[in-house]
């Protein structure tokens, strides 16, 4: 891939091409997701190629403060998230975070989020790692989304416990995922890329019963 000094427009074309040739981990299930989704009940879709950045910095350290100034803050405890515009930081562990940003924030599409984080880290103790290819994102929405997840997740998903805007690293269908409740009836699930097909099919199967009328 020869790279030449290019004008902004040709750079944009390059970025569009870059995205067109990529295949997301659950691309083969896209049609199944569309046909398996039940409008107004529960819908499933893949949100491919989100920019994911792993951050590590000891809480309260100067490095953490510099990283926080780029992301707009770092969550302090388990389940915490900090949203700043279209970028959200999820808490994964003490001193470990995951930045979730739109696709365009990635450097291959002309974004500068990762570079900004790397220059904020400078030579401080910590890590900024591009993890975009590590996981894919499923979006499960609708009034039955919780019921679908409850079939395979041991967390208490009732809204009195699990509030919108919290994210937990846990297990769904016996595989490790990050579960982020983005709204009252919407969840984002981040499985590793290699688990995407399994989890996609598992969710489709779990959603299937809601296509039939409820048995009284």
């Amino acid at each position, binding site marked *: 891939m020869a790279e030449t000094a290019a004008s902004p427009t040709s750079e944009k074309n390059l970025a569009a091409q870059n995205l067109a040739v990529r295949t997301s981990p659950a691309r083969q299930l896209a049609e199944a997701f569309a046909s398996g989704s039940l409008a107004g009940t529960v819908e499933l879709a893949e949100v491919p190629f989100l920019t994911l950045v792993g951050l590590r910095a000891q809480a309260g350290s100067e490095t953490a403060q510099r990283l926080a100034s780029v992301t707009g803050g770092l969550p302090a405890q*388990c389940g915490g998230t900090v949203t700043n515009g279209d970028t959200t930081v999820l808490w*994964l*562990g*003490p001193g*470990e975070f995951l930045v979730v940003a739109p696709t365009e924030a990635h450097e291959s599409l002309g974004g500068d989020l990762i570079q900004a984080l790397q220059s904020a880290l400078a030579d401080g103790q910590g890590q900024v790692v591009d993890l975009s290819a590590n996981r894919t994102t499923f979006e499960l929405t609708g009034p039955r989304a919780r019921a679908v997840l409850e079939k395979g997740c*041991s*967390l208490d998903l009732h809204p009195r416990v699990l509030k919108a805007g919290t994210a*937990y*690293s*846990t*297990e769904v269908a*016996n595989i*490790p995922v990050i579960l982020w409740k983005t709204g009252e009836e919407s969840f984002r699930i981040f499985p590793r890329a290699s688990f995407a097909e399994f989890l996609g099919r598992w969710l489709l199967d779990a959603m299937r019963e809601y296509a039939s009328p409820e048995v009284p």
Partner: protein
Amino acid sequence: MLLISCPNCGPRDETEFHYGGQAHVAYPENPNELNDVEWSRYLFYRANTKGTFAERWVHSTGCRQWFNMLRDTVSYDIKAVYPMGTPRPDTTPAAPEGAAK
């Protein structure tokens, strides 16, 4: 299924954790001075307690942090969860007391 209280994440299913064996097995001060018997005792010989046992666990599907736990090997009753590097919180002293790895 055990319900284990992770110090960072709160109560989670046992399936999210991995077991790390006996806690408080101190690394030898001068490993080069040990003979083969002593070295193998450090590497492979562990207590097989019937009753309260101090062991290490890691919350591998959550915060990925290690911690120590006092668990009854008969009743599976979890007596205490405490951070790595702290001594065993018990009235009956543990046999080999030392810094956790």
